[in-house]
């Protein structure tokens, strides 16, 4: 899993069967210090709680789809949780 920040929402009028009610969020991946790093991506949000501006962690690959119900859906990134705090030796993020 990696850290990311939600920077927007993606609304689809037509989706693959099984993804009708799943929010899609636009995510900027972050490095270990919380700075933006890498290309932005669209992630499914099975928590249904994340929104723009929040720091989240997301899973990629086959495991991403397994966070959804039904799980046999074409998804390659999914938000697993919303970060409250990150405890780092140099302080909190």
């Amino acid at each position, binding site marked *: *899993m*990696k*850290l990311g920040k939600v920077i927007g929402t993606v609304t689809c009028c037509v989706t693959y069967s099984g993804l009708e009610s799943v929010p899609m969020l636009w995510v900027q991946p972050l*490095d*270990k210090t919380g700075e933006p790093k890498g290309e932005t991506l669209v992630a499914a949000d*099975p*928590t249904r*709680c*994340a929104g723009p501006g929040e720091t989240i*962690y997301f*899973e990629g*690959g*086959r*495991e*991403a*789809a*397994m*966070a959804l119900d039904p*799980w046999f859906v074409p998804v390659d990134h*999914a938000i*697993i*949780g*919303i*970060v*409250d*705090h*990150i*405890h*780092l*030796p140099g302080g909190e*993020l």
Partner: protein
Amino acid sequence: MITGRVIGEIQSTINHAFYDARKLMIVEHTDFEGQPSGDYLIAVDSVSAGVGSQVLVLDEGNGARQVLKSKDGPVRSVIVGIIDEIQTTA
């Protein structure tokens, strides 16, 4: 498996149900001399590792689910060992 060092712990109230009561650590990837490569990942802790520990991380889904005794958990990375020492001939 990869070697790494735990550099932080994530607290999260809202998460996938599989992650309830599981400890999530930020692990920076290190080479065999313990030097960070710049990459990192977030892994579930199964061995009570703490911040600063040099650890062994399994980064593969089926093995991770086996370690965490789950059939369908959305998990890929698990800390499976705390490293005491690495000996190399290099």
